[in-house]
């Protein structure tokens, strides 16, 4: 604990928010030993006393800190120590072996709740078993989540009650980040145990909600953080508003995970209402900008506002760090379908080259569209259906069929060749094309029969959507295409 507080003092003296946050980061995979030593530095009471000494009575530190603030930090580190105990236990790092009396060959692996509660070996095996069960269920991820939530509350209280300054905001980030992770692990753990069929007293019960109980709760806590940042009226240089995009991004992630992306809209609404008092978006860290723009884009995408979506996603794409392959992949997952609809263009092989996953997702489809291969398009869409639906891009990609059809009809037009121009002028393309010719092409490419009325319907759609210029003369059974640019944007 002493070493931890030493780090805290160093970071505090230089006002280094990130260093400060590091002292509250339970990075088990990289830092297990150090975390263990922090945990083992005492029991509940002694840690409490130590912290009190270090923060309140120890004058050697000479930190420029009010006593109010010192109490706040003291409580935070106590909560952190307690949460650490739960985390280490849940990670399986804190185990003791207990010999069962009467069964000398049997050892029970027991995770202790806390060092201050040692198991009494005088208990009968039965009671040890019971105790074991109790302990094992207690050190679940759910209790990790609860303990961490308590820490988060303490940190929030630091800002509301203990005069914390805004440079310490990375502590809030760490709290929010790990809270979300622990909530998901808690939900996953409960799900796999299959227990907790809680009697539900609501009329509109929803098993989904049960499944994400911790994460739902987490969303509420994150909302507190969001509001904590939003509601700060201090001048911008001292404002917690600098934390707002981090909080929003965490909220977005949580809402998407909860399948309630629509709730993100509320956040955006609140944000745009208070945008005047906010620091410039460009002055936030780029990582936060990218994440925010990505989610803003996806939200617009889900509402089928493709132009808006494209704007946000393009910005995210441009800002994204070139090494962040995964993020670029995510952005492109939505940007590519967007582009297909708004500009009718497909990703080049070069663009997709570094992303094998995206190639698998889009390449077949893109080829079919390019060739005007209706059957190939249908197949590619079906093959990728599960993945597309999961990413909510199925409905958008489906509309790529229009482009595939356009390309097919264009081929028919080109195959029609040229006729003599009027009054012996230069050759011009044949612009009167029988519906039957288009019908034949669609039948060939789609691999199934289709009646003339439906063909006309498809042609009408092409014209209506400005993919093809001209008109249908129904009674005479042919299509009259425009002499100039029958297929806008394709060179013919």
């Amino acid at each position, binding site marked *: 604990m002493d070493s931890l507080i030493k780090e805290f003092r160093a970071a505090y003296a230089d006002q280094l928010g990130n260093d400060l946050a590091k002292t509250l980061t339970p990075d088990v995979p990289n830092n297990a030993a150090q975390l263990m030593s922090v945990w083992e530095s005492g029991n509940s009471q002694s840690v409490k006393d130590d912290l009190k000494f270090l923060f309140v009575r120890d004058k050697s530190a000479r930190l420029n800190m009010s006593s109010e603030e010192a109490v706040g930090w003291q409580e935070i580190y106590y909560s952190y120590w307690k949460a650490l105990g739960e985390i280490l236990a849940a990670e399986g790092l804190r185990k003791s072996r207990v010999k069962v009396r009467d069964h000398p060959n049997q050892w029970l692996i027991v995770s202790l709740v806390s060092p201050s509660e040692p198991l009494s070996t005088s208990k009968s095996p039965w009671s040890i078993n019971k105790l074991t069960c109790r302990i094992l269920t207690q050190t679940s991820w759910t209790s990790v989540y609860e303990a961490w939530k308590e820490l988060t509350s303490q940190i929030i209280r630091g800002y509301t009650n203990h005069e914390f300054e805004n440079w310490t905001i990375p502590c809030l980030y760490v709290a929010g980040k790990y809270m979300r992770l622990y909530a998901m692990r808690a939900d996953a753990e409960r799900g796999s145990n299959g227990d907790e069929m809680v009697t539900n007293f609501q009329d509109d019960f929803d*098993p989904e909600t049960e499944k994400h109980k911790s994460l739902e709760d987490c969303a509420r806590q994150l909302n507190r953080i969001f509001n904590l940042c939003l509601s700060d009226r201090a001048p911008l240089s001292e404002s917690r508003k600098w934390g707002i995009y981090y909080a929003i991004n965490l909220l977005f992630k949580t809402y998407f995970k909860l399948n309630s992306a629509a709730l993100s809209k509320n956040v955006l609404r609140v944000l745009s209402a208070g945008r005047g008092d906010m620091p410039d978006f460009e002055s936030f860290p780029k990582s936060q900008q990218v994440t925010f723009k990505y989610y803003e884009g996806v939200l617009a995408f*889900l509402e089928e506002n493709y132009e808006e979506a494209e704007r946000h996603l393009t910005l995210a794409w441009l800002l994204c760090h070139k090494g962040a392959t995964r993020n670029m992949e995510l952005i492109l997952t939505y940007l590519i379908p967007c582009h297909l609809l708004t500009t009718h263009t497909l990703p080049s092989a070069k663009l997709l080259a570094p992303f094998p996953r995206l190639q698998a997702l889009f390449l077949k489809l893109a080829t079919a569209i390019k060739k005007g291969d209706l059957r190939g398009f249908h197949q590619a869409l079906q093959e990728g259906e599960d993945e597309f*639906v999961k990413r909510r891009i199925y*409905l958008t990609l489906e*509309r790529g069929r229009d482009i595939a059809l356009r390309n097919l009809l264009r081929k028919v037009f080109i195959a029609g060749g040229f006729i003599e121009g009027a009054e012996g002028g230069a050759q011009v393309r044949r612009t009167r094309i029988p519906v039957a010719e288009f019908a034949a092409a669609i039948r060939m490419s789609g691999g199934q029969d289709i009646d003339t*009325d439906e063909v006309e319907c*498809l042609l009408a*759609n092409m014209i209506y*959507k400005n993919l093809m210029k001209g008109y*249908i003369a129904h009674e005479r059974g042919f299509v009259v295409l425009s002499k100039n640019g029958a297929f806008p944007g394709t060179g013919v």
Partner: protein
Amino acid sequence: MSWASATPPGTQPGYVSYAHGNFATSAPHPFATLQPSYSTFAMPSPSESRPRINADMVPFLAATAYTPVPVRQGFGQPYTLQPQYAAYANTTNPPPAPAAPPAEPQQQQQKIDWPDKVRSYVQRSFESKNMLPDVSREEMEAKLKETISHAKDAGIMYTTDWDSMPLPRSSAAASTEPPARATNHHNSKKRKSSDFSESDPSTGNPWRSNKKLLSLSDRISQPPGLDSKSLKQAEKAENRKQRFNTAEYKTYRSPSPPPPTGPILGTCTNLEKNYLQHILHQTLDLLKKKWRKENNYNYICDQFKSLRQDLTVQRIKNEFTVSVYEIHARIALEKGDLGEYNQCQTQLRALYASGIKGNAVEFKAYRILYFIHTANRTALNDAIADLTTADKEERAIKHALEVRSALALGNYHRFFQLYLDVPNMGAYLMDMFVKRERLAALANMCKAYKPDFKLRFITEELAFESDAEAAQFIIDHNGQHLLVEREDSIIFLAGNAKQLFETARADAHRRVDLKGQI
């Protein structure tokens, strides 16, 4: 069962006469003066006589005995119709007269026709075996007073099954008043005292900490149609219950969890309605029949809501619940009541998700069509993501997905073909947006076709039933000038109509009335 045998003369309880006396003075509280009569055993009493029930009281009581009234008010007590009491009330043949004039109880020596069940009920309450050491007589009496006056007021004095009525002591014990020492009643000869002999007052009241449980038990009525034989058994059962602890109650009450803290308001005005599941099954059958026969949507919707409320209150979530919601959803669909339909749909989704069987496929298909109608893209996306591979092979779901696909691609030809062949009741949902899609299709056609085509083409493409209907649709949207007669057919001047239908389309697509409530 005669009075004499039921109530030995020596123990003719004074409370009856007091009750009577009190009826005359302050009718709603027949037990207001009850306490003095009992206090003959414990404290100075203003009354040493034990007057009998005054015959003058009979009209009063009888007048109410005939009135059919709501039984389940406030879920207070388990009142059940007892035919034999109705008969009894008849034989006493009371003249329907106003209540007796006020009279001092001490002076009333005439007999009164209290139902002997009431007498024995009160008597049983005060039997030593049923008394609890720390429940004061006053409390008991207050409770009794409340119970009986309620029965009187509700006119169910004769129809109440007093034999199976829980004794008032538990509620009294649960009251916050300081316990007073109870006095043993001298009479223990009253019916089957041996039944009580095993009860041990010194063990304390097992219900004291379980007021909730008792109040729930209060709400459960006995199955109707108990005859005198089963009454005896019911009595035994009652005694057994009182002897044992609360665990006994768990077997007695219906399999529903403890009630919420808030009040439960009943609206049932049906005398014979039982608060148990089997009656809900009968209700559903009845409602189905009524719907077929009368087709009165407002009534049936109301009834279904009540049925759903009962299911909710009792926390019944099984296949029966699913079928109630399914039937209500279908009826709402038929009547175009989308608000109600959506409520049912939401519940059904949750019910199916928790693994309860039903017509999940049918309703998954409706759900897709519903979101097409409300143009809720996000929800539609989610609904599709919910489908399993097997689901997608089902005809109804396939159909709904094709409808969606046809609309997404603007393939109105296909859309209206699908409209003509909808599985189950999906057509009612499609009816909701077919007008909107007709406008979209017309806007489309008007831009693409030149110069004109026969009206028949629209009739066929947009699935109108006749040329007349198609023409009417166009006229309704101010397109009369676009229809001209040429030779032997009507021609639609598509080339001139572009703007008209584009505007109409945009209007129709802009807003979807999500509620659609009737």
